[in-house]
């Protein structure tokens, strides 16, 4: 029984790379050294931290770090490190450190290198998070993060189409796989009843017997196989070679593609051991192994060759996992490690060649060992490890693979015989392409016509390769003494008691696997010699299966999905016209409502309706008539419709008074006034419309449309009426009501419960609400600044025309003199009323906490006072005399409201906690004083600002309209041309 030991080490291991990624993202674009130093330091610290954890996991312990995430659902953020996770985390961090060093020299100073390291670190963090996840959902999350950051890394040189396409393809394939994995782990979690990895791994028997096992298995394997580039999803990997070489070396050796392998090994105890596992995983593995190795031989790009070889080796590991044998698992994990070391070093060597010669094309490269002897030797050793030459690490895992292939646990004789043959064949292929890599690049005559003169790279750039190659050799010679204990720890943490006997010896005697190795080596060399002539021709693509291009299929599918299918669907289902859209939306809404009624039923309520009051009935008879009238007249008689709408609003307002909602009535009344003014202001720019004229289409269509709309309207109306009646004849829930009523005075210090709710209990909502109001006002303001109004559609009023004519006819009168006295008496009255209305506004504000009123109402009242002046006096007259700065009002209002909320922090209370007390003032007596009042003052100021900003901005359009008109036409009724005083902030 492994003991769990919570350790704060784990969040550090995962968190550090992410934190450093953010820091690196903020470095200056050319801070190559600083970014590399940061990334390197983080990688080294991670290696050290992981190393520190070794004693615990070596003893069979598990490091565990838990944070509650959604405890109600039993979901926690769990980091968990056992031997296997330790091994992979170590690989990720250690190879990451080497990659950083290499990238420091590989990346050109002209590139934005900090961005590169930022992505690389974030990727390292995601990968570490993935291997250390102790929760399935969290694992899927980090899995998707690795897809995302690998996308960013592959597309790092996004100015090239190749990088963009490669990145997009990788993301499409791996993220789609990731979604499958997510669905898979959800099913798995459902089977087990928990998303905790420990629980899942312990319930293997239960999972395999469950009817949903196959669903979960296929979904999870889709995730793993896409990530590990297994056939038929392998095509994204070669295209990901458009990435900078350090990225390829990292992603395709130790990390990204190994994630799939990791996942399969991780879930081995839970999912493996069935026929389905053998067939799916084994088939994918063996196909990928052979195809990858075969295609790799015919690649002319060094990185392309390595890419297909990676695919092939991943196939080998997958096949080993698919064999359902414990020793197979050991071999798979061992080969994953070995592959990481030799493949990373080969990628780096290819990068060095590219960096120093300017090309990676084997057809152009030749004889480089004379120019870079040291690099050549390193590459040769690594390639020999890849080919499985004895005394190197690749040989050991390949021997184990051969041994396992001979023991494939299947009843089908044919398959039983085919697997060893396939293994030897693929092995021979790998010898061939390794030879091609070395012979093509380093031997032969001196290269001609290279973009650069080849030479040895800086020694620090070669250093990571040296380390890795050294590891290949040491492990190859002394496996049991070097990696033996680590491998053992990793395997034990997966298999526990079931860990098999295996031997990590170089020499197993003259056994069958050794014979197979020899055959493969000789066969590979022979094949290379035989293919010389074909390869020298330099034909693109592998013979026989050249037409089988998965990429083309992928591209066609993408074009079909994202273009043809989308266009067809848009053509069939879409419309750019608003009316059909709204019609559809309303129908769907009505249908949804009806479904709800159908499911739950809408029987009679438990309350008996009160007898109707004739007065209210009369009021609503008017209201209903007005509503219908507004609907009827809105097209040709806009003003009449607007007045009717106003009446309907007033009737609503009366209803609020009737049913004990004085605050609502006040607000509704004021909003009604302001809205009507607003709409009136807008009327002048709408086109004239008369009821005459030839209809543009046959009457029958119009009639049909009208009837449909009428039916929808009637259904909506009847539905809402029924619903409202049903709601009203049921006892309302009283939970919140009771709560607010009981506490409004005792805890909020106000008797007007609605206001106390707004400024105190639900103050945060109100803060959001006034912010929205401010945003809308700013949007209106911004839109109107850009907007050129249409020509006025309304002439001057008849009276004004008469007055102008009078001025023109009488020489003693100057033009516009009479008209300036227009509406003299009303304007005098409103001017006198201005301070009075403001006093009312302040009164409403101050009493709001205890009696109907409050910030919203008061703000609207004050805005009405201002608007009246505009209406009567005209925009220019009023702005000559009064400076209104709505933007400031809004800003100050929002500031006051927020500051009041923040002030609660000073007293150690949560945001927006209110405080109240009673203050003894001379003369006034006891005055209630609540901090909520200040909040309400903020609301007040913002509402004034927002309402006036919108109305004034609209009013200014008329001034601008006049200015345009003035240029063309003389004798406007406006005062002599003068720069209109600018609204605060207007251009």
């Amino acid at each position, binding site marked *: 029984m492994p003991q769990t030991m919570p350790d704060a080490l784990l969040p550090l291991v995962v968190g550090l790379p992410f934190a450093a990624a953010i820091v690196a993202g903020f470095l200056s674009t050319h801070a190559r050294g600083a970014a590399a130093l940061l990334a390197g330091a983080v990688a080294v610290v991670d290696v050290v931290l992981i190393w520190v954890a070794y004693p615990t996991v070596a003893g069979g312990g598990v490091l565990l770090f838990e944070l509650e995430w959604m405890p109600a659902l039993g979901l926690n953020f769990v980091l968990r490190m056992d031997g296997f996770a330790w091994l992979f985390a170590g690989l990720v961090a250690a190879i990451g450190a080497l990659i950083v060093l290499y990238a420091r020299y590989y990346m050109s100073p002209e590139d934005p290198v900090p961005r590169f390291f930022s992505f690389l670190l974030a990727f390292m963090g995601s990968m570490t998070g993935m291997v250390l996840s102790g929760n399935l959902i969290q694992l899927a999350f980090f899995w998707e993060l690795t897809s995302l950051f690998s996308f960013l890394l592959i597309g790092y040189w996004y100015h090239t189409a190749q990088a963009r396409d490669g990145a997009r393809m990788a993301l499409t394939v791996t993220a789609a796989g990731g979604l499958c994995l997510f669905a898979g782990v959800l099913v798995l979690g459902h089977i087990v009843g928990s998303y905790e990895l420990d629980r899942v791994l312990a319930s293997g028997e239960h999972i395999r017997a469950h009817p949903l096992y196959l669903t979960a298995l296929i979904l999870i394997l889709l995730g793993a196989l896409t990530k590990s580039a297994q056939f038929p999803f392998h095509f994204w990997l070669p295209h990901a070679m458009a990435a900078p070489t350090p990225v390829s070396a990292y992603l395709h050796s130790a990390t990204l593609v190994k994630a799939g392998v990791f996942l399969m090994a991780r879930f081995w105890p839970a999912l493996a051991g069935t026929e389905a596992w053998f067939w799916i995983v084994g088939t994918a593995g063996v196909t990928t192994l052979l195809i990858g190795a075969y295609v790799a031989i015919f690649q002319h790009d060094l990185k392309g060759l390595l890419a297909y070889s990676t695919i092939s080796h991943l196939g080998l590991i997958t096949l080993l996992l698919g064999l359902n044998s414990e020793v197979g698992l050991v071999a798979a994990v061992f080969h994953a490690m070995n592959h990481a070391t030799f493949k990373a070093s080969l990628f780096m060597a290819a990068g060095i060649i590219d960096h120093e010669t300017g090309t990676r094309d084997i057809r152009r490269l030749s004889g480089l060992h004379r120019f870079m002897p040291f690099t050549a030797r390193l590459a040769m050793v690594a390639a020999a490890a890849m080919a499985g030459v004895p005394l190197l690490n690749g040989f050991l895992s390949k021997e184990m693979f051969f041994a396992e292939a001979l023991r494939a646990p299947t009843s089908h004789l044919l398959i039983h015989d085919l697997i060893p043959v396939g293994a030897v064949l693929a092995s021979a292929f790998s010898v061939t392409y390794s030879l091609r890599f070395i012979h093509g690049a380093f031997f032969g005559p001196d290269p001609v016509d290279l973009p650069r003169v080849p030479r040895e790279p800086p020694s620090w750039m070669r250093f990571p390769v040296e380390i890795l190659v050294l590891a290949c050799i040491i492990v190859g010679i002394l496996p049991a003494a070097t990696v033996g204990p680590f491998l053992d720890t990793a395997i034990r943490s997966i298999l526990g008691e079931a860990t098999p006997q295996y031997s990590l010896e170089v020499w197993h005697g003259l056994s069958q696997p050794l014979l197979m190795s020899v055959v493969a080596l000789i066969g590979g060399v022979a094949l290379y010699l035989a293919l010389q002539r074909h390869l020298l021709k330099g034909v693109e693509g592998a013979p026989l299966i050249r037409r089988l291009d998965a990429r083309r299929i992928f591209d066609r599918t993408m074009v079909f999905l994202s273009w043809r299918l989308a266009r067809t669907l848009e053509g069939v289902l879409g419309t750019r016209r608003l*009316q059909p859209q709204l019609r559809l939306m*309303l129908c769907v809404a009505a249908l949804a409502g009806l479904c709800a009624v159908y499911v739950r039923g809408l029987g009679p309520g438990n309350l008996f309706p*009160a*007898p109707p009051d004739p007065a*209210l009935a009369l009021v609503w008879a008017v209201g209903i008539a007005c509503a*219908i009238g507004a*609907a009827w007249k*809105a097209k040709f008689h806009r003003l009449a*419709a*607007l007045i009717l*709408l106003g009446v309907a*609003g007033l*009737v*609503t307002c009366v*209803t609020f008074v009737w*049913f004990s*909602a004085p605050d*609502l009535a006040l607000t*509704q009344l004021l*909003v009604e006034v302001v*809205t009507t003014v607003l709409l009136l202001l807008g009327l002048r*720019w709408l*086109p004239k419309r008369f009821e005459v004229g030839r209809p*543009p*289409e046959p009457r029958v269509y119009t009639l049909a449309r009208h009837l449909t709309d*009428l039916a929808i*309207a009637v259904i909506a*109306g009847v*539905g*809402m*009426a029924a619903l*409202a*009646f049903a*709601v*009203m004849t049921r006892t*309302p829930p*009283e939970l*919140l*009501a009771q709560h*607010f*009523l*009981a506490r*409004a005075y*005792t805890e909020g210090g106000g*008797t*007007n*419960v609605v206001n106390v*709710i707004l400024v105190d209990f639900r103050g945060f909502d109100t803060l959001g*609400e006034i912010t*929205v*109001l401010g945003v*809308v*006002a700013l949007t*209106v303001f911004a*839109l*109107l600044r850009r*907007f050129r109004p249409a020509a006025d559609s309304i002439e001057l009023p008849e009276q004004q025309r008469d007055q102008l004519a009078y001025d023109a006819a009488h020489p003693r009168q100057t033009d516009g003199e009479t008209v300036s006295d227009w509406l003299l008496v009303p304007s005098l009255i409103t001017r006198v009323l201005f301070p009075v209305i403001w006093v009312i506004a302040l009164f409403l504000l101050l009493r709001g906490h205890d009696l109907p009123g409050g910030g*919203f109402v008061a703000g609207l009242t004050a805005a009405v006072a201002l608007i009246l002046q505009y209406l009567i006096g005209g925009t220019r007259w009023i702005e000559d005399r009064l400076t209104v700065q709505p933007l400031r009002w809004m800003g100050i209002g929002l500031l006051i409201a927020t500051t009041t909320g923040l002030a609660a922090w000073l007293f150690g209370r949560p945001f927006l906690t209110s405080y109240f007390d009673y203050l003894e003032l001379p003369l006034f007596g006891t005055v209630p004083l609540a901090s909520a009042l200040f909040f309400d003052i903020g609301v007040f100021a913002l509402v004034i600002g*927002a309402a006036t900003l919108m109305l004034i901005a*609209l009013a200014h359009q008329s001034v601008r309209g006049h200015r345009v008109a003035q240029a063309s036409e003389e004798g406007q009724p406006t005062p002599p041309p003068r720069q209109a005083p600018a609204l605060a902030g207007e251009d």
Partner: protein
Amino acid sequence: MEGIVALAIGVLTGSGVWLLLRPRTFQVILGLSLISYAVNLFIFTTGGLRTGAAPILEPGTAGSLADYADPTPQALVLTAIVISFATTALFLVVLLAARGLTGTDHVDGRERNQ
């Protein structure tokens, strides 16, 4: 009593929906206003219809639902009224801008027969 208010909500909704489906922007804006009356009334009625029970407490006491109307829907509707004013204003300005840009007040920015 409940019947009258339900009928009112129904008619306001119906008229609003009808206007919402019309082709002219001004009709749509009036329709939205009517619908907002209806919705506000509806939310308000979820607290039940009470006369003479405004939620203004006697100073110094804790209220109870027996004596006062439910203040929660009222608080909700109060902010809803203000926000619906803001959206009406926004929509009006969009309407005017569209009219200035396209030269028509059709909701699609162009006449049906064009």
